[in-house]
């Protein structure tokens, strides 16, 4: 590790941490957990910075976020939280805030892997093969679990189904 590495890593991380934090929050639904998850992911990127700097550090970081999130749930046992956690500190306009809480609460009805698949597919715009590779699962599982996740959202959170409108129809 040389001084130049520190400067280039800090510059990269400062520029990309907000985008990565958004992904981490969608994966976890909890701001503090998301911050911990991102901190660990950035540390792992920093440890490999000399090799990643000229490659795709952000792709590596997103893979770490997705996989570590699954691992975190796995080692503690899945706890499906059905009440929405408090909104992250920041914007609070009433209607939009309520809608965000509704979405966050609905996502809590999914398994960790279903949630990760939805986030990667529909927020990150990953393809099915990209999602499968990132999560270390088959493409068939990505497809079937995307379908299952949307069905579960409709079942467990009918209010969201109304918001989703034509989803699944």
């Amino acid at each position: 590790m040389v001084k130049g590495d520190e400067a280039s890593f800090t510059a990269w991380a400062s520029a990309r941490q907000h985008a990565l934090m958004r992904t981490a929050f969608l994966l976890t639904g909890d701001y503090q957990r998301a911050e911990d998850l991102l901190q660990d992911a950035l540390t792992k990127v920093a440890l490999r910075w000399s090799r990643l700097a000229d490659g795709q550090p952000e792709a590596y970081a997103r893979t770490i976020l997705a996989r570590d999130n699954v691992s975190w749930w796995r080692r503690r046992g899945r706890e499906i939280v059905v009440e929405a956690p408090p909104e992250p500190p920041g914007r609070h306009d009433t209607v939009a805030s309520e809608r965000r809480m509704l979405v966050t609460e609905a996502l809590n009805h999914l398994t960790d892997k279903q949630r990760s698949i939805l986030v990667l597919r529909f927020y990150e715009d990953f393809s099915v093969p990209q999602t499968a590779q990132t999560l270390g699962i088959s493409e068939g599982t990505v497809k079937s679990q995307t379908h299952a996740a949307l069905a579960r959202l409709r079942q467990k959170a009918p209010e969201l189904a109304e918001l989703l409108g034509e989803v699944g129809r």
Partner: protein
Amino acid sequence: MTEQRVRELLSEVADAVPPPQLAERAWRQSVRVRRRRVAATAVVAVGTVVAVIGIVGALNDGAGTIPRPDGDQDTRMVANPPLRAGLPRPPDTQIDGGPAWVGPTVQDEARLPSAHTTALPSSIDLASSATSTDKPGPAMAAFAATDPEHQMTEVMVVKRDGGVSRLETPGLDIVHNAENGDPVLPLNISSLSPDGRKLVLAQNHQVVIYDLVAGGHRDLSTKDQVSYNVGWTSDGKQIQLPKGVIDPKTHQITTPKGPMQGDGSDQGGPTPIWPPRASGQSTAQAVSDRPVSALGPTLGNDPVLIRVWGGGRRATLALPSDTEDLNPRSRVVGWLGENVAFQSQGFGSFRVLSWDTDNGAVRVLTNVTLPDGWDQGVTASWADVSHQPGFAQ
């Protein structure tokens, strides 16, 4: 568009997330991690140098180098030092009045020396093609994995010779936790009977007992008892439910008075990881979540301790969380002489290791190759391999 609406909603949630300030903190943390790694490597290197100096002291000619048979002096460096955890060594500390050693991390296990026993094969390949049968014969282990919905898709049975069969289990339902509705894997760590001849799987309000030798299965209602976490008692005489036991001969369910085997996890103490394995007067069992301040901070957040007690024996092996801070998810498989065989399961790795309770050395008994997609959510249940002959270092 359907997908477009989902995208919009997720983006709306994400856009409200304020920026973190983690860049410099992450760099500082990486520096600390790197320093710890260097320090750990240095400890291993010092130990190796001491050992090499000891050998040199015994063999050298007084000039500090090892004489070769042809009279030349060998000045080559010693490379690839053996992992300290794989060597006989003094205890790292004392716990509960007995010696305690720090075991290898999951990442370090690949560098451990091998040991051999006729009780276990050196490798188990679950990825190889396996035939389906309802009577694979006496089993050494049973493996199952879940898909993302926690639905068990198949049970793989490992026979005594290391061969693998797929157990025919048609018509299994997804089991749900009665308290929170979460899916539960029908196979758990004590599903296989200690003699390896029967397997019990949980279903909703019933259990299914498979006879692996004669074939066939029997469904048994558990009435109002929840059936998940069903498993054999360590003596193999009963099948235990969370709040009752089943006599496998009479199929009667009774609720014993007093604490159930394995109770205590709600008392704030260490959580026992079923099952314990006994040999003579000595018992070995894994426990988790126990404070181990005597062994320092290197164990991570979720260490597992393999504990041995009874018969004048008391010893502990502490297994650190891996670098991903994952619990090593260990459990005792049985006794092989003075050694405790235990499973170690990390992210994408699965092994059976032996621990010499006299000198702390840990060695690899069996490497397990998992099928694609089984890196997460895989569970194994082992027969008791105790009292099997032929263990060699």
